[in-house]
């Protein structure tokens, strides 16, 4: 894990990180968080988190970026949007979690052995390869690299799913799957141009 704020380069990353978060659509609202804790109270997984969403916002505003990206918090968000619809300041907290995940990946700060970052990556690989997510391929890849025990824990149900035809082995490829690569390449080029 990179120790930030130790070199000038890290300081620049730090600054860019803060700007990226505040520049996301609706991001500036983070400034008006009143620390009421409705988000943490509404979150179904906050009890598993190192820091709840309220504390993540506080840490971010205090410039403690290390704490924000090294916490397990951002990887435990299930995208249920309970916090987002309840936040009295209108902060799109689920979107903030996405942004923090994105930046953790971009600046290579995501936990290397994490299951959630791996799952995210495999999902996107599958979509770019086939145009659609091939669930079986995704699960197989995930099991092979991150959770050897899964097939055993899940064997009975897996077999039933398979015999019911709910686990097709072969992926369907869409005709326009090269378009997804082109879309990503275009946006990457635009971003490089802007910086």
């Amino acid at each position: 894990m990179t120790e930030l704020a130790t070199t000038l380069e890290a300081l620049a990353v730090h600054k860019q990180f803060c700007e990226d978060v505040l520049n996301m659509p609706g991001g500036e609202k983070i400034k008006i968080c009143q620390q009421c804790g409705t988000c943490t109270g509404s979150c179904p997984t906050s009890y598993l988190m190192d820091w709840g969403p309220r504390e993540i916002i506080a840490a971010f505003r205090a410039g403690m970026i290390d704490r924000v990206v090294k916490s397990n918090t951002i990887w435990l968000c299930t995208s249920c949007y309970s916090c987002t619809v309840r936040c009295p300041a209108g902060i799109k907290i689920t979107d903030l979690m996405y942004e923090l995940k994105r930046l953790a990946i971009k600046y290579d700060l995501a936990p290397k052995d994490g299951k959630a970052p791996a799952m995210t990556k495999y999902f996107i690989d599958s979509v770019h390869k086939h145009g659609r997510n091939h669930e079986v391929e995704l699960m197989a890849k995930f099991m092979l690299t991150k959770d050897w025990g899964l097939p055993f824990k899940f064997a009975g149900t897996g077999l039933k799913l398979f015999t019911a035809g709910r686990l097709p082995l072969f992926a369907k490829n869409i005709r326009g799957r090269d378009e997804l690569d082109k879309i990503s390449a275009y946006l990457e080029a635009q971003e490089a141009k802007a910086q």
Partner: protein
Amino acid sequence: MRYLYYPGCSAEATGKAYDISTRALMGKLGVELVELDDWNCCGATSYFSVRELDSFAIAARNLAIAEKQGDEDLCVICNACYTTLAKTNRYMAESAEVREAVSGALGAVDRTYSGNKPVRHIMDVLVNDIGLEALGEKVTRRLTGLKVACYYGCQYSRPMGDFDDPEFPVTMDKFFQALGAEVITDFAGKAKCCGGMMMLTKEEGALRMCHELLKGAHDAGADVIVCACPLCEMNVEGYQPRVNKTFGTNFDMPVMYFTQLAGLAFGADPKQLAIDKQIVSCDRVVAAIPA
């Protein structure tokens, strides 16, 4: 009545029965579904976690195809696909940056999108386009006496809230009441999270959520839980053995796509609705419906 139809990736695998029963149900109701040509994955929640603009742009590829393919609204069955596609419209309308980036990216693959294709959840179509009264009249086999727990899940009405309340949705309750079922209207878990993909990345957390849902439905005396999302269905149904093992419970709760149960009420037979693809047998649910 005609709609463009977006099945979503799960509908080709674990959620196959959702797609099959949707087509059967809509057929019985005289609604024509035209599958969106060469649709791609909406990006779901994973894509948002890598690059936000990419996720809007790949979702918008579907909307661009829809706009070109026909004037009909785009009907979506999966909660996550629905939210992702509807959110793309919303953010394109609200943010000039998103709009420009998406338009540029689509331009790179010779596509255009205005931002105006209506994205509709199938339940929205059923309740608001066809209407509860018309639905009630078309029922051939009323679900009398069947106790139903409607499990909406998160992304049914959050964060958009376009056709139902984000905290306490009621459309599915009203839908099944129109079909004659006894709906557990105060089912506390109705809009709670099933854990989603966390079932694979942090199992203990997701199992606890599913346990609460199953316990809530079981304690309320539900005969069946009905779902509107393939991920919810997979977690609540497929992981029951894991829940039982972890919490020392003994749940054997039938879980169906809402389209499967509704299809029965409109005269489709269990085979047409792929009810045999369920892991927890739904035979007793089918048998409990008066002929």
